[in-house]
């Protein structure tokens, strides 16, 4: 569920963002509280709180005093924008590095992408951050 590459609060924040992208939490819907997340995931409440606050700081969640945390209007677009920026760093850059190792140039890569698109092979979804 969590790995050792990054602090858990960051991983949890990304997971909640994933859930918003997939529509598990709709915009203006309430998300679980710090204590609910902590109990469910067996993590320290401070860690869960940090994850929620990170999303509040990013404008993805907002607080309603005395009630809880809610998904902001426009949160989905916000996350998509952020993820597209990350796409270069997390997917394109490692792709280029490996291509260089294999002696593939950009034209080769494009050809391979087109081939893969034409005949998709079921691939494991890569981690958002390279494991190495």
């Amino acid at each position, binding site marked *: 569920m*969590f*790995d*050792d*590459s*990054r*602090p*858990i*609060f960051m991983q949890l924040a990304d997971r909640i963002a994933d859930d918003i992208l997939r529509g598990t939490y709709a915009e203006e819907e309430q998300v679980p509280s710090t*204590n609910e997340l*902590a*109990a469910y*995931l*067996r*993590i*320290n*409440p*401070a*860690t869960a709180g*940090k994850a929620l606050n990170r999303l509040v700081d990013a404008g993805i969640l907002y607080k309603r005093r005395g009630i809880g945390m809610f998904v902001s209007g426009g949160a989905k677009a916000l996350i998509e924008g952020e993820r597209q920026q990350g796409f270069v*760093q997390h997917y394109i850059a490692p792709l280029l*590095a490996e291509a260089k190792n294999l002696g593939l140039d950009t034209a080769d890569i494009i050809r391979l992408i087109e081939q893969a698109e034409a005949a998709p092979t079921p691939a494991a979804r890569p981690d958002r951050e390279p*494991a*190495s």
Partner: protein
Amino acid sequence: MTAVIETRGLTRSYRGQAALEDVTLDIEQGVITGLLGRNGAGKTTLMSLITAQDRPSSGIVRVNGTEPFEHAEAIEQMCFVRDNQRYPDDYKLKHAIRAAAIFYPNWSQPLADRLVELFRIPTKPIIKKFSRGQLSALGIVLGLASRSPITFFDEPYLGLDATARHIFYDELLADYAEHPRTIILSTHLIDEMDRLLERVIVLDRGRVLRHADVEELRGGAYQLAGRATAVDGFASGRTVLSRRAIGALATVVVEGRLTAEDRAAAAEAGLDVATVSLQELVAAYGLGDSLGGDTGTDTGSGTREPVDRDMHSERSGS
């Protein structure tokens, strides 16, 4: 954050052997702190000194600003569950529960009853006949139901099966969420318990190596593997915590975080980079000076993150 426990230059020697040496810590109120380190690192000694079950050779302990030794009001605020807790010979479960209910001002009988049920602690036999796991479960019941403002658990999981350990983690988090308090627990099961913690103290040979947020330590070291010359070249000037080699190949654990440029340089040098779990990091710290050589010196070259907001946890020079 306010420090509920302060130690200043805390030292405890037994027959000239220092079990704890010059330990200066501020432990924050309302935080779950893990006490990590090898056997003999001084974890139990530190907990005994804070709870006034032992006296320091030198240095000071303060709990809520007062020295706890022979101060009932400070001692009443604390519950220390020892891993080898002793009970009077004729005690059964109900006697231990009754005694705890009298002793701890915040005792919760409903919680105690529920936990006894969950852990299936037997009521008939005397505690002396309990198995290791039953003894641990009883300690957990007393520690949690005491709802002491400061609660210490010394390796509370000994002999517990996986189900019972998960009950402990769930109950600890649930009761802590409802009744926030200061909890300090020593553990070797770091992979299993690190998520319960907010802060960690890493002890080695009686000294504090690190006192930091667990989240700052997670990912606070990495492993490099490849040709020994390339590994050592990359590691030179960085803080190497452990090194293993076979033939021309070497693997090192390096303290710090990799920048994007570091990653690129490592890839360029043909090195494999892997993450290091908190458990592996603590194990590497436990190797201490056995590393030798000159790669282990902290040159302060800026590769280290400012891991500590308290100042007192700088690694003692290696």
